């Protein structure tokens, strides 16, 4: 089981790295958004928060790669003609899909690295992290919880024919609602409960607590807990999808 998981994750990570589209959304797009935010903060009154911007823009990239990669994961397998083979294999489909959704979140790590390196070289962003150990735990915890959120996206978006439409729609709102660059206090009050159930909120808070000197452990714990909830939801939705697809013979129908 561990081998299946690791090999699947590595395969999809390599496969996504070969895709120009994923290079665009996990490397180039975060750099462009980070640069916009750097210039905005420099010309505004918050020049001292460039590390805040670099981390936020990096996490934006993780969300984008998860959203576009996981949201269309099952549909993509369908188009490639590999969905039937994967479903027919003896391994549970959940164990086949989770490495893929985790890989889409993992590729987003390029975003964090790129925005930090870009910020350091071109904007002089200080890379002084108050608690490196907490950061080293917060980053993978965030990636895993986003990957499991990706599982929920994959198993629910598949019910709709145009999953890409949802992906296009959900990029900016989640950036906004999870406080990646704009604090939630600036947004209407009703946004906050939405933010609580989205793991990027806690992942971002954990990373910032670790970077700027706070206690990141509660946020890391919430990230992990939310990840387990997503896993349970994703497993139920996936079982439902598989049952419906088998009984209605719609597995390969787009």
């Amino acid at each position, binding site marked *: 089981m561990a081998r299946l998981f690791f090999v699947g994750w590595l395969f999809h990570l390599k496969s996504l790295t070969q895709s120009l589209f994923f290079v665009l959304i996990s490397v180039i797009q975060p750099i*462009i*958004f980070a640069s*916009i*935010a750097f210039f*905005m*903060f420099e010309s505004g*009154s918050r020049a001292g928060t460039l590390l805040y911007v670099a981390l936020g823009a990096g996490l934006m990239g993780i969300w984008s790669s998860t959203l576009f990669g996981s949201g269309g994961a099952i549909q993509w397998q369908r188009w490639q003609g590999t969905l039937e083979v994967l479903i027919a294999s003896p391994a549970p489909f959940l164990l086949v899909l989770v490495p893929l959704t985790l890989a889409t979140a993992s590729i987003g790590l390029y975003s964090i690295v790129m925005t930090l390196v870009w910020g350091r070289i071109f904007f002089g962003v200080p890379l002084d992290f108050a608690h490196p150990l907490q950061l080293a735990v917060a980053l993978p915890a965030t990636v895993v919880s986003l990957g499991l959120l990706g599982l929920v996206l994959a198993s629910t978006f598949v019910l709709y024919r145009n999953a890409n439409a949802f992906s296009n*729609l959900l*990029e900016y709102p989640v950036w906004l609602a999870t406080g990646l660059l704009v604090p939630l206090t600036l947004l209407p009050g009703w946004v906050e409960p939405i933010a609580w159930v989205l793991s990027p909120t806690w992942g971002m808070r954990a990373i910032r607590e670790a970077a700027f000197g706070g206690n990141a452990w509660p946020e890391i714990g919430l990230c992990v807990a939310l990840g387990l909830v997503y896993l349970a939801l994703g497993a139920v939705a996936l079982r439902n999808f598989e049952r419906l697809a088998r009984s209605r013979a719609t597995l390969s129908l787009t």
Partner: protein
Amino acid sequence: MSTSLRIFFVGGGISYRALFNWISPGMYVTTMLGSPLFQILFFTYLGRYAGSQDDAFFIVGNAIQVAAMAGIYGMTMGIANERQYGTLQPLLATPANRLAIFSGRALPFIVNGLFVSTFGFAVSWLLLDFRPAEGSVPPLAFAVLVTTCSCVAFGMLIGSIGLRARDVFFAANLVYFLMLLVCGVNVANEDLPGWLGAIGRCLPLTHGIEAAREIAAGTPLGDVSGLLATEALIGIVYGTAAYVLFRVFEAEGRRRASLETY
């Protein structure tokens, strides 16, 4: 002349409708209206937090930039998809006027871009309390029209490159995101490093957005006519370059028998 006009209007209309072979109405609404709405909200709130400019700066910039989505992506697909879907050879086998075929495709995307931009301004009025100066709406609409036309011309250029390049949508995506940075959409041109600002001044959007901001603040149309003329000129240059490339690639494709090869 009447045949060319028919090709211009009917051919352009059919080409636009063909996109809905795979774009469902739901996808159109979420992509062309939902995404621009949240883009405007995101950058306006980010601007409030950064404290760099007032709301109107970001609203006008982004409400016009979203027209580039129709202009760049739409126009790229309108031309490059002919090759992808295997319809380029029959199209170019016809004796139809090439200028009519080529330019007719632009009209629906200009209308589409105007619609998306209007929607952006309308939701900003509704949700962000955006109020342009009294009497500024007609000249603002004119500025948006000129800017949308130049974006569509730029999209034509990328589409023409797509008649030859392997992955033109990567270029279209890259250009779209770069425009957010260098065209004064969210960062004033003078706040950018000189070389980056210079790139922005050679692209569509920059002068149009600058003019639109001044119009929305109450400046008469005559006072920004220079900016709009520059925007139009940039569009004409890109449109001409796009048509020349289209003809060159057509000739090259015939000569090498490589019209639809990748």
